[in-house]
């Protein structure tokens, strides 16, 4: 288990848990990020503190610092 920004670029994972405050968790869940949802990390930029992911076919961006609250289970490469 690891945090979302630690995933290799282009890697897939299953969402395990979202920490952080309630409004952040709720916002994520309502965009379809629930435990068990498949997420793909598309881009991570430390310089811009930016993470771009694909969930349910939709491109979402969030702050890297906030993405650290998202715990995921990486899928085996293949």
């Amino acid at each position, binding site marked *: 288990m690891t945090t979302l920004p630690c995933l290799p670029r282009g890697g897939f994972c299953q969402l395990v848990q979202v920490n952080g405050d309630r409004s952040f968790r709720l916002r994520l869940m309502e*965009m379809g990020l629930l435990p068990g949802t498949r997420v793909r990390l598309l881009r991570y930029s430390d310089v811009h503190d930016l993470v*771009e992911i694909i969930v349910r076919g939709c491109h979402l961006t969030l702050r890297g610092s906030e993405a650290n609250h998202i715990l995921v289970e990486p899928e085996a490469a293949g």
Partner: protein
Amino acid sequence: MSKAEKPPTAKGTAGRSPLVVVAGNPNTGKTTLFNQLTGQRMRVGNYPGITIDRHLGKLQLPGGTQVELADVPGAYSLAARSAEEQIALFASCGAGGYPLPDLVLVVVDATQLTRNLYLTVQLLEIGRPVIVALNMVDRLKEGGKSVDPGALSRALGVPVVPISARSKQGLPELVRAIEHALAHPASATPDPRWIPGEELEADIEAVRASLPTDWAGKDERRGRAIALWALLSIDPEDELRGIPPPLRAKVLERQAQAKAAGRDLDQEIVRSRFDWIDRAAPTFLQLDARPSRDLSERVDALLLNPWTGFPLFLVAMGILFQSLFSWADPAIGWIEDAFSWIGTKVGASLPEGFWRSLLTEGVIAGVGSVVVFLPQILLLFLFITMMEASGYMARVAFLMDRIMRLLGLNGRAFVPMLSGFACAIPAIMATRTMERRRDRMITMLVIPLMTCSARLPVYTLIIATLFPVGHWLGMPIQGLLMVFMYVFSTVVALVAAAVLSRTIFKGRPVPLLMELPPYRVPEWRTVLRETWHKGKAFLTGAGTVILTCTIALWFLLSYPKNVAMSQDYGAARTAIESQEGLSEEQREQSLANLEHKESAEHLRLSYAGRMGQAIEPALAPLGFDWKIGVGLIGAFAAREVFVSTMGLVYGVGADVDEQSQSLRDRIRRESDREGERVYTPLVGMSLMVFFALACQCMSTIAVVRRETKTWRWPLFLFAYMTVLAWTASFITYQGGRFLGLGE
């Protein structure tokens, strides 16, 4: 703030035309569809949160009935954390003073179907008739998906009409479906799609019992939907409005109980909805191929890359800034010339007196000072609408987020703040691109601190007149001073933003979570229409205030007319004209001198002159005399007017600019009653600091009034900037004197 906060007044139930509300996620083309259905001109963009005002329109059904259309702010969910987001629920279920809709039209992006259905499922819970407009079906292929509208309709239990709002495909069918659903509401009102578990059921009923009676009336189903909303939305730190304390207490109690029992209430509710969607999805949604967003991804690889993205962003901003600063210039020049030509023509055809003066110097000059803003406003909004419609604005928000967050600002505040270097008026109007009121307010209140182009003539005059042409460390002193003024104002603006965001506009940090829409080629007609709409809104909204102020200033500067002068100028003029032994040139010169002297004295005796003298005690600690005070009052029309007002005050004529040698010489010679020089470099510095920080611009006040729809904020802006300017000038002048820089 916006119309959205004022619930539209419902007409009497008898004979009221049916109300259809249009809801949907951001970026679904809801606004375009609304436009197509009502023919009303509205903003169309391609990034989240564009709808701030509530839009209303009318739709004529084929059967002859007229339907009222109202849009619901775009949202991913009805759950709300702020008063602004709360509108979505109230408008869809007729609570909090909003009328109960007869039909809810949900606009759904077919290419992002499962996420869009989350809102749809929530709306179905309310129990009002629902129709789904399945938009962007023409784009499904590029996403490698296909959707079966019939199967979707069966799954949801409501009519589903595939459309493409951009190409107007499917609109007649949609209108017929609206007509049918209004006539047969039961056909569009299915049972809720999911059934809560036992524990959640108890929570819902407990909260429902605490709802205010006017929110859901006797409608049990609507009450349950609002109870679910309350369970997700209310918490000790929410910024919702009008939640009755018993309801709040009940929700907090149930949340605490659930937590104590080890339940995750939020997740239970959200998951129930998504579980239904995921179970039903295979019946209507097929994935045919891997989704391809090749082009968008390749562009993003460049524009969001840390190494190339930022320089490319700077290039884009450079072009934007250049266009505001120099491309708008010729157009501004034409407008000024045109209005002065009209003024001269009208003036020549009227007899001298009050009406001529009012018409030419008040009304025509006033209209001119409004229209002169149009080139910059149109250019800026042309850029902004293109950035929005293409999808680049969403990226800019992210590129700038990290830096702007340090100042307590939104990433989107960058474009308005940069535009502030050209002119605060279009820049303040551009704050509309931010969804949160707090972000808009902070940006709006610091933009007038940026060094706008109208301050340049004032700085040029002061620097060239009072500071030596020389070098310091190999750099020209005068140029350095100019650079210093820019740096100074920028630093003050950024500090002010940081302070405002930590004091008056203190708020919880909001997580940034948003969609990056695929890049799209902007639709030209929409962009141009939108740009023009902005210009028109400025003319009608802020224009009237600016015009009124110009007329008021004209009056202050030219009245009273019949006052006792120190000498009889008419007689003096006759004397010069009849004096012998003067060459034609000398005679003209003497007459001109006399005229300048007369207008200088007239200005001194005018209301503005008296005001200048009245405020002199307040200005003296800054090193200013009453003549500078008059200049400051005149500069309220526009900062650069300071230069010509000083020309008038010093009797060298109003026809001067910052390059005039006569004005510079006269300013250097100016001495006070004791014979001391009025203008030292220290006074010049103090004056520039004052100009950098004071809100010497009635147009700024007018446009802030238009954007905030109240007088409170423009007055606050004026007050805080004046206090800031006075204090900073005081420190500059008195501190300088203390250090012995006074001479």
